[in-house]
């Protein structure tokens, strides 16, 4: 005579237990599927980061408004700069540093009309002729707090103003006045250069070989050397 508890302890003849070999195959298959899924996701993630690194760029446009005094001499220069960050990737981009440099073409120096300059002009060779540019603006904007984050697949414009006048930078303003007055009709030719440092958001702190993988450096415009220095806010 058997009780219920005895009957439950007797192994069922039809019940098959998986062999250890089958269990190992199953473990291998599970590890393989997990790895394959993570590989596909990682490849996609890596592609998006590469796209963000390759395609994100900054377009800079600037416009100068020259204020004149009662004698028609320039007394201030109000430069408005629009930095447009174009992010065509599916990752968020964080703007960290935007550096702007602005020069004005120094025709009086080029023609030998006026060779006295407080700062050294930058030179640029265009079609075999040397053009001279006087540095007017040099400014760096950092965006640590508050952070500026550009959402995926979008553009964002950051506008900044720099004012140059006789009070804040008298030396630069006096040189600018000379160039303005000695240039025909005061038709000034401006040149700008922007250097930007951006970061791809949400990448863990990097190390070793790919330390700068999340960092994007972009340059827009023409850098004139030496021609350094200039007014900042």
């Amino acid at each position: 005579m058997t009780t219920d508890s005895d009957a439950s302890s007797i192994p069922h003849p039809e019940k098959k237990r998986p062999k250890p070999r089958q269990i190992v195959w199953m473990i291998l298959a599970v590890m393989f599927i997990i790895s394959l899924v993570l590989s596909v996701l990682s490849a996609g993630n890596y592609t998006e980061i590469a796209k963000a690194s390759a395609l994100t760029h900054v377009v800079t446009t600037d416009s100068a408004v020259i204020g004149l005094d009662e004698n028609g001499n320039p007394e201030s220069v109000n430069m408005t700069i629009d930095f447009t960050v174009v992010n065509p990737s599916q990752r968020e981009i964080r703007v960290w540093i935007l550096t702007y440099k602005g020069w004005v073409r120094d025709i009086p120096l080029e023609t030998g009309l006026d060779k006295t300059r407080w700062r050294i002009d930058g030179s640029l060779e265009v079609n075999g002729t040397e053009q001279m540019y006087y540095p007017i603006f040099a400014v760096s904007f950092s965006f640590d707090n508050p952070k500026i984050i550009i959402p995926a697949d979008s553009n964002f414009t950051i506008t900044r103003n720099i004012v140059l006048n006789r009070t804040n930078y008298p030396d630069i303003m006096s040189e600018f006045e000379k160039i303005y007055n000695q240039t025909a009709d005061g038709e000034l030719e401006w040149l700008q250069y922007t250097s930007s440092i951006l970061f791809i958001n949400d990448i863990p702190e990097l190390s070793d070989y790919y330390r700068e993988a999340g960092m994007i450096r972009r340059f827009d415009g023409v850098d004139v050397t030496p021609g350094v220095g200039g007014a900042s806010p």
Partner: protein
Amino acid sequence: MKWRELDVQEELRKLLPQIAMYLMLGIILGFVFFYDIMPYFCVPAASDFPVWGLVSLLCVLGLVAGYLYPDIIHMLLNAIMLPLLGAVFCFLIYMSPALSPDVVATGIAEEFINMALLLMPYMVISFLTLFTVGFISMYLFEPDDV
């Protein structure tokens, strides 16, 4: 001719589990290599991947391969083939952005050399670990009747 075709089919059928095992282990190993080289690009992302983690995983994979085929030929094949397959798969993940039409792939040969240099120590570590674990597992899992 008929018997020969059947013979080849039979041989292939016998080899199929081994090929499947090599492919699965190679893909696992390739992902592990990529994760160790560039953890911040992976899902889930990490800032670092410890060396003991890599060696432990290699030991587990070596034990699995050694348990399924515990003989000297497979032990040697595992130690040589798996690091190579892993390196190939790792390189495929690494080059995946080049498949995107938006990203212009430049300097593939240069990237290949860079990646090969990065993968070299991983292949050496894998070979040594898989060889050692394979050797141990030959004794651990050898059939009783042998």
